[in-house]
């Protein structure tokens, strides 16, 4: 029969863990043969894993010291305690993922009308149902910890008259879902962990026999483990981190008595000196690390209680900034680091994302992972860098299907085939555990492609991740409850929650392992053996730990079901704080005034547990930084800024000027030069090109090319001589659809499909005009024409080669020649407006059409002035259906233009490239705009203030600050 629990008080003279170890050795010896410390049948419960490790280390030390053969005890945190006591640890359990999916299924299987009072908008997909399932499972777990099923809650709540009438129906529905889910699990011979405990308990099971169960520094225990402990035949000891004088503040399990801890222990309150208020978490984090180092420099052992885990990364960064990789000490997160930060996990995650999406963007995302790119390239035996191929592809194609990419880009075909093979292999209806193994095996296989050539450090990282994922493969059973893509997404998002031990990069350190400052969680800090403790981020909302809000577990329901309330948690955390403060030689408590995003924070109430003047002073100190006389600590900076910012570059003087001289110019280059010599230089001399990712539709160039090419196909085809509008329209439409099919046939972008349709419509509208023109006797004599021998413009005795292609040349009934350019912009301006500035003294801004006369010299009778103009294929049918926009320039105009061209050539030859002229639009070419930097800024600001195009919606981002 159960013995009464023995409480042993460890005192506050020193950190309690060594004393606890000592006490456990004495107890353990009672059960051990001579010469041994046999703790094999001892179960020790501690609040955190670091405390476990340190206690074990202390036991090893004590055993060594006494020459005892140690058999290690079982060490647990309170979570798994219940199962250990019930002997349930080995039973196959529905792990989180399976359980989630089955609860989601139970929700989906409940009819909408029934569900409505609980869930007003019942979900219709598994993924959405899973979200609701998460909410219900949270309540399920908490209630089960107190030995309750939802049905029990219904019974108890029924007896509480002051609850609103809709409360009970909600719980009844929830109970229905709960029962259905657990029944499903039962039918699979699997146990819901919570349910299994309740079952085991009602069966009176109490499997595992221990000699001794020791609770060390456990401040709270839910009802269920209490009942289990009381029923257990083992001897139960609670080692309490407090002096015997405070015994009245602890209950029979040695846990905190909420009533007794409603008030602080006099004399064990944070002192003014120990409290530091800082601006934001980054400053606070730096102070925390500096304070820890200062403690250590005085010979004290030290740890950090990272009350706000958001401070840990800033602490690491502060040290890195200060001392670089060779810091003598590092910050170690006791909670571990998210697996999501591990490169190999990113690989697994990108692989699964691609298997799900199977599109060009997901492929690109996968290939940006260096391991993925290398391993896949190896596997598919690719010669070229696949990302570079994708870059080239992005310029021409919009969201094509991968099958199409494979067909058109032979160099990518094996890669896509390999991924398709993986996809069919993995993404099929199969149970979670098989899906997980298949995905992981695929990743492992790919990793093994690279294994021998990668450094040890990489191998180590892969091993750690593989082990963690292997351990997290769901339980085995034979049902595949979810569509494969959703299942894979759920699986990876579940995996994403895993944490890995925060180990230093041993391989990179070359054996020189740095010391560590452990950053602990709140619950485990009280028991830590360090002499000095830095509490980081002690803000209201973190400590006292708030009771998490839950739509079913309203405060009134919590009270009715006797679940822990705010008051319980305040008492517990007050006790923990006392345990942190009392036995330490030094304590530093840090609270920030603002969070990382600048929103105000308040210090924890526990720091304001005083009355009268101390309270008022402390509040004033916090709210008014000027009243704060606290000295901020900072780490010395190893990074020092220089005198000048060398990132401030002169875009007109790039890292290297090309001294290549320009020997040939396209007819369109002149406009670019006239617009912006600097951009001409970048584009034509340095041949710089910007790639805009994530294109969703055809840009002006691609759209224009499609229209051009369709017209070209028509002009070269048999229908060119037709004067029948319907025939022409049909021919144009055929051509544009053929081309579009070739180029964008399998595009996933619906926008492109609309664009193709619109291109066809525009061409149809052009057909009328073309028919009329033909009827007037004009015939198309050339399309896409360029001179057989390069044309040249003589400038100051030296020729400049002029290149270009003329869209179309027509011959009129009287033999006149018209040189025409297709324009497919939304609005098409007449040539006079595009080529010349407005005003009294117009200047040339484009020279394309006049330069055609140079280009086409060989075609033209000497001295003849051809008609120059545009054929507009605009958004809107021109008002008079006149698609031809002629320039109407005479010889003098043209000569003037050629002179202007000569002047451009001269300036190009003189390398006059520094002037920016008109800047680019930052939204179209953000990288070029960034490169142009302030030059761009100045020009853009001027341009804007002139056009008066102000952003009226200013303050937009500030607005969301609430």
């Amino acid at each position, binding site marked *: 029969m159960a013995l009464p629990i023995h409480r042993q008080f460890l005192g506050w003279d020193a950190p309690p863990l060594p004393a606890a170890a000592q006490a456990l050795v004495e107890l353990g010896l009672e059960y051990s043969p001579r010469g041994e410390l046999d703790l094999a049948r001892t179960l020790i419960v501690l609040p955190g894993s670091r405390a476990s490790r340190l206690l074990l280390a202390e036991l090893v030390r004590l055993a060594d010291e006494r020459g005892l*053969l140690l058999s290690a005890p079982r060490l647990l945190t309170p979570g798994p305690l219940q199962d250990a006591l019930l002997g349930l640890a080995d039973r196959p359990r529905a792990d989180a993922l399976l359980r989630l999916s089955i609860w989601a299924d139970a929700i989906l299987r409940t009819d909408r009308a029934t569900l409505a009072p609980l869930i007003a908008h019942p979900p219709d997909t598994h993924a959405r149902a899973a979200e*609701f399932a998460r909410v219900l499972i949270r309540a399920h777990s908490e209630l089960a910890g107190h030995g309750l099923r939802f049905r029990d809650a219904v019974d108890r709540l029924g007896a509480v008259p002051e609850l609103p009438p809709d409360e009970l129906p909600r719980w009844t529905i929830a109970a229905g879902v709960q029962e259905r889910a657990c029944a499903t699990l039962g039918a699979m011979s699997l146990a819901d962990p919570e349910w299994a405990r309740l079952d085991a308990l009602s069966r009176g099971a109490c499997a595992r026999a221990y000699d001794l169960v020791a609770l060390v520094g456990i401040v709270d225990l839910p009802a269920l483990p209490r009942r289990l402990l009381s029923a257990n035949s083992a001897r139960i000891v609670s080692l309490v981190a407090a002096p015997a004088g405070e015994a009245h503040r602890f209950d029979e399990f040695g846990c905190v008595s909420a009533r007794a801890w409603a008030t602080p222990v006099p004399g064990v309150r944070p002192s003014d000196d120990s409290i530091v208020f800082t601006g934001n978490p980054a400053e606070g984090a730096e102070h925390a690390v500096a304070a820890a180092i200062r403690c250590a420099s005085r010979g004290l052992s030290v740890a950090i209680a990272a009350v706000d885990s958001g401070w840990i990364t800033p602490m690491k960064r502060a040290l890195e900034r200060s001392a670089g990789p060779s810091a003598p000490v590092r910050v170690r997160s006791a909670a571990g680091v998210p697996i999501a930060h591990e490169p190999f996990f990113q690989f697994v995650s990108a692989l699964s994302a691609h298997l799900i999406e199977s599109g060009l963007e997901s492929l690109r995302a996968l290939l940006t992972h260096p391991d993925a790119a290398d391993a896949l390239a190896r596997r598919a035996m690719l010669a070229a860098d696949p990302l570079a191929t994708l870059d080239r592809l992005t310029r021409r194609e919009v969201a094509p299907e991968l099958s199409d990419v494979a067909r058109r880009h032979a160099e990518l075909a094996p890669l896509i085939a390999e991924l398709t093979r993986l996809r069919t292999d993995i993404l099929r209806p199969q149970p979670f555990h098989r899906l997980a193994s298949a995905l992981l*095996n695929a990743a492992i*296989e790919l990793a093994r492609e690279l294994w021998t050539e990668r450094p040890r450090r990489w191998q180590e990282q892969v091993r750690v991740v593989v082990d963690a994922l292997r351990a997290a493969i769901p339980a085995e059973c034979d049902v595949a409850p979810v569509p494969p893509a959703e299942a894979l997404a759920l699986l990876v998002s579940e995996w994403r929650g895993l944490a890995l031990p925060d180990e230093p990069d041993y391989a990179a350190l070359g054996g020189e392992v740095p010391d560590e400052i452990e950053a602990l969680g709140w619950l485990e800090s009280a028991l830590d053996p360090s002499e000095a403790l830095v509490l980081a981020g002690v803000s209201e909302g973190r400590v006292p730990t708030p009771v998490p809000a839950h739509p079913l577990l*309203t405060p009134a329901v919590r009270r009715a079901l006797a679940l822990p309330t705010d008051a319980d948690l305040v008492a517990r955390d007050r006790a923990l704080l006392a345990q942190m403060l009392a036995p330490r030689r030094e304590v530093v408590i840090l609270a920030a005034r603002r969070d990382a995003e600048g929103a105000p924070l308040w210090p924890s109430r526990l720091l304001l547990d005083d009355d009268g003047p101390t309270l008022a002073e402390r509040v004033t100190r916090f709210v008014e930084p000027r009243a704060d006389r606290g000295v901020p600590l900072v780490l010395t900076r190893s990074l020092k800024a220089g005198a000048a910012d060398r*990132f401030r570059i002169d875009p007109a003087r790039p*890292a290297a000027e090309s001294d290549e001289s320009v020997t040939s110019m396209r007819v369109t280059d002149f406009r670019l030069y006239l617009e912006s010599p600097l951009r001409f230089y970048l584009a034509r001399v340095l041949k710089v090109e910007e*790639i805009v990712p994530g294109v969703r539709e055809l840009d002006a160039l691609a759209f224009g090319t499609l229209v051009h090419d369709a017209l070209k196909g028509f002009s070269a085809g048999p229908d060119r001589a037709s004067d029948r509008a319907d025939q022409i329209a049909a021919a144009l439409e055929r051509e544009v659809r053929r081309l579009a099919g070739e180029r964008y046939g399998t595009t996933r972008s619906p926008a492109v499909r609309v664009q193709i349709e619109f291109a066809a419509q525009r061409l149809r509208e052009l057909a009328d005009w073309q028919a009329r023109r033909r009827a007037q006797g004009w015939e198309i004599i050339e399309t896409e024409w360029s001179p057989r021998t390069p044309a040249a413009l003589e400038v100051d005795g030296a020729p400049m080669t002029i290149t270009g292609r003329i869209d179309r040349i027509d011959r009129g009934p009287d033999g006149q020649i018209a040189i025409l350019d297709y324009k497919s912009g939304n609005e098409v301006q007449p040539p006079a407006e595009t080529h010349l500035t407005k005003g009294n003294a117009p200047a040339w801004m484009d020279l394309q059409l006049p330069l055609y006369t140079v280009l086409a010299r060989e075609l033209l009778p000497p001295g003849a002035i051809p008609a120059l103009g545009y054929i507009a294929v605009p958004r809107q049918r021109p008002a008079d259906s006149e698609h031809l926009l002629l320039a109407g320039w005479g010889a003098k105009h043209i000569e003037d233009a050629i002179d202007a061209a000569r002047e451009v050539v001269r300036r190009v030859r003189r390398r006059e490239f520094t002037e920016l002229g008109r800047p680019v639009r930052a939204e179209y070419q953000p990288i070029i705009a960034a490169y142009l930097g302030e030059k761009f800024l100045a020009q853009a600001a001027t341009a804007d203030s002139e056009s008066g195009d102000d952003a009226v919606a200013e303050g937009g981002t500030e607005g969301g600050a*609430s």
Partner: protein
Amino acid sequence: MSVPDRRSPVPSTVILASAGTGKTFQLTGRFIRLLAMGVPPGAILATTFTRKAAGEILGRVLTRLASAARDEKACDALAHAIELPLDRAHAARLLRAVIDELPRIAVMTIDAFFARLVAAYALELDLPPGWRIGDAVELGELVDRALLRCLDAMPEAVRADLLRELHEGGYGREIVPTLLKVRQDATTAWRESRGDEAVWSQIQALHAPMDRAQYERALGDLLEMPLAQTKAGKDHAGWVKARAKLLEVARSQDWPAVLKSTLIGAVLSGEYYKQAVPAAALSVLRAFGEHASAVLTARLAMRNRAYCRAAGEIDRAVAFEKLARGVVEFDDLPRRLLERPFEGDLDHLYYRLDARLEHVLLDEFQDTSLDQFALLKPLLEEILADQEATKSGLPRSVFVVGDVKQSLYQWRGASPEILGTLAQTLPGLGEPRTLSESWRSSAVVLDTVNRALTDVASNPALLDSDGRAGAGVEAGRRWDERFPQHVARKGLRGSAVLSVANSKAAPDLVAAAVHRASAIRARSEHASIAVLVRTRKLIPWLVRDLLAAGLDASQEGGNPLTDTPAVSAFVSMLHLADQPGDTAAWLHVSSTPWARALGVFSGTYSAHPSEARRASEAVRVGLACEGAAGLLGRLLRECAGETDVASLRRLEQLSQILDRAEAAGPRSARELVRFIRETPVEAPSAARVRVMTIHQSKGLEFDAVILPELGAGLGKLRGPMVVRDGARGPVRAVSLPGNAELRDWHEPLRAMYDSARAQEIGGELCVLYVALTRARHALEMIVPPDGATGKSTASSAAMILRYALAPDAGASPGAELWRHEDSDPIWTDEVEAPGDVGPSPVEVSPSQWAQASGVRAAVASPPSAHERSDGPEPILPSGSRLRGTAGHRLMELVEWLDAAQPEEREARDIVRALGLDDGQARELLDRWREWIADEQIRVTLSAHGCAERLASLARLTGAHLSLSLRREWMFATRDAQGRIIRGQIDRIVIARDAGGEVVAAEIVDYKTDPAPNTSVDGHGQTTYREWLQGRIETYRSQMDAYRRAASRVLRLAPERIGVRLLMLGAHPGERSVDV
């Protein structure tokens, strides 16, 4: 005994508080008064609009109570302010009460309040239950996806028609941008109109268009129309030309051009070339005007309907994406809450909130949107209707404070009219009280404000460009109704100057501002100076030039970090990571020190892709292995010396936001790029010259304010115009603005336009008001000079100020136009020196770290069995894990096979507990029986055999050894580096000699790996033998580790410890392996 006062001691009230009149003081005073009268802190709701402002309110409550608790004088002042007796002890008690209730205190943003409601009703609203507020970047991506989804979902024909209609009947190329624009411009209007297409169809043609025949006839009429005559009796040449032009456009049916025609314009004014239009001509021309306007109105109507439909489709698609991703925007919260009305059900709400709201204090009420008010209204009405005393003895109350004149957020839905008409909407609130005594500004500043913003309706700057009294005057009229004369409470000195920049170009505006700031700084070392601008664009530039002028300047309120060249180059580097072929990005990177720090740069930019590719790969490797902030840190160590102090500070901030972005896991380079470009980050410093937008300056004050950007035109409309029934009633009509000529022919459209524009201009007057009232002492207003044509006729803040302050002066470049007659340059004497900034920081060097003893506890686990020389083991086929566990459990039943057979019953229990089905269980038990019958295994697990082996290990053959057997033995010890090693060994037998000394031990480890199916003699299959060898090799390192660990625990030389693998899946005779 006195007659009890029938009035409530805390009557519900509305306060209209002009700038600087102590709004927060009033509100916090009210809060404290309620506390002092015994109201529990949790029963008070106080809302405002930014988290910062909410923090300030609670901060003020706390400090006022804290100083009262500490100091008699402060206590008296507080007692006076709250009009209640108060002593220090009482103040201390109130402070204690507030602190104890901190988590329940509802001083929060209105968004946070709604979020709390939503959380309480998480399962009842059409929101994902685990919702979170999405950041700008993910919302942007989400909208992109939604647009494509929405296009995809539409039937092809519908889609094409809709887009054509959005493009005014044309085939516009841009599809996604067009939809994005619809979303940006029209979503609010669509929601407010509840998606009712009828509301969007209110603008219709006023006349029927002519049919073809009528039109032909009209063209004929036009040809024959009588024209105005010269004195000589000839047709007026101007008329002739104009008619020809009109004929041309009329024939080609270019309707906008028809309406633009000067002759058609003349119809409306009735004259042309100062001659009356002949009556006969009038009717001919009018027919054209009416026809063109009818056609164009029809097009506009089509476009309006298309906008409505598109906005609806997009809104649904976005909502779907949000739901699928569990993301919401703050705007969604009130909308979803409104779908579940709370009227009459407030008790339920109080139950869910676990707090009955007794008193509500609403700050900045002018910024409340209609949705927000719709939610608040039932609550306010309930409180006003319920005048029973509560537990504290007080009836419940409502307190509203705001200023219609400071309404800067109309563009995102704020409706200041709610405040303007609150007294009518909620009669229980009584008439508003107006506060116009400023505690902030000098008389000169306030007088300038009064002069500039009194009788705005008569300010010529607000006339339409054609000189008519239109929208601007209407806006002015409304403004004048709300504008009280401001009075200075403090006798501060001040100055106010209106001066002219050298040109309207940005560089000159910047130069003028820098010049003014320098002049002020020259006179006062400490004066705080703000340069307030309307748009963000000028900010980085202003800061740079201010710094260059030797002023300590900082930007405020946050620009994206890309304002710093090093950050912007870092962004290009991230871009390069994903796009190795982007030579522009490489050019940018290679022009900066980053390239060298990356370690791949030859020193000369080259367009050849190989170098860019190597750089790209280096960045990708860095991102994957170190994360973005890690990569940044490493690169920065290489080149920190090439930054300056300000830049390095910005780079540290970059590191912080990158860590924030990647807290939950790494993000793609593309997302990071977007995140950096779109996240505003304040550059905090103690600088005394601060540059920010006027919006950002709200709630702040400065000794001097410089306004260099006053020249922008007023009243530009974005998106559709909305007409309501009354100021806040349901939306009656929505339409796009159309163009000016059409509006001339369409009175209802014009009226809509004027009213929308009046509202827009009203908002801009607020901006001007806020800008002017930030100043304590001095105002420097800088306006652009007159253009070539003299005074601008466009409305702008600059022109308003000029007409109000210096109506007659022409603005020549660089001139001073006006100076307030009481301007006193020695206002600078009154500037308070900034208090001392607190103790300066103490530096701690990491090298001071001294290893503290005893606390390190690195734990190494023995190497896992999964390691191989060529990478990790693949996962075994399903089912084997469970069988493996079961196999282990069963074997652990074995004690000594030569002593006793293990119990079948226990074995069956084990198998059952594991949940194996009958078939599996039977198979497993059969195998187990086979194992324990296996000769080799029997020898291994027999006491006899074991004793012999141990004796030989101990080199004590023949001696009597006592054996002790441990199964699932947990060990713990230290390794050579002092780390703790722990683990579990399946089976260990420890041998002691007669003296009890441990002399040898044997470890047995069970392995259940199934042998490959060798009956399939496939090519490339591992043969059985290779498999067995491979397994043994794989497990060897694990076994070595066990041996080492046991050696330490048992204090026994390793060679005295035997290790055996029992390969249960191997062929009989090959199962017990000595390693």
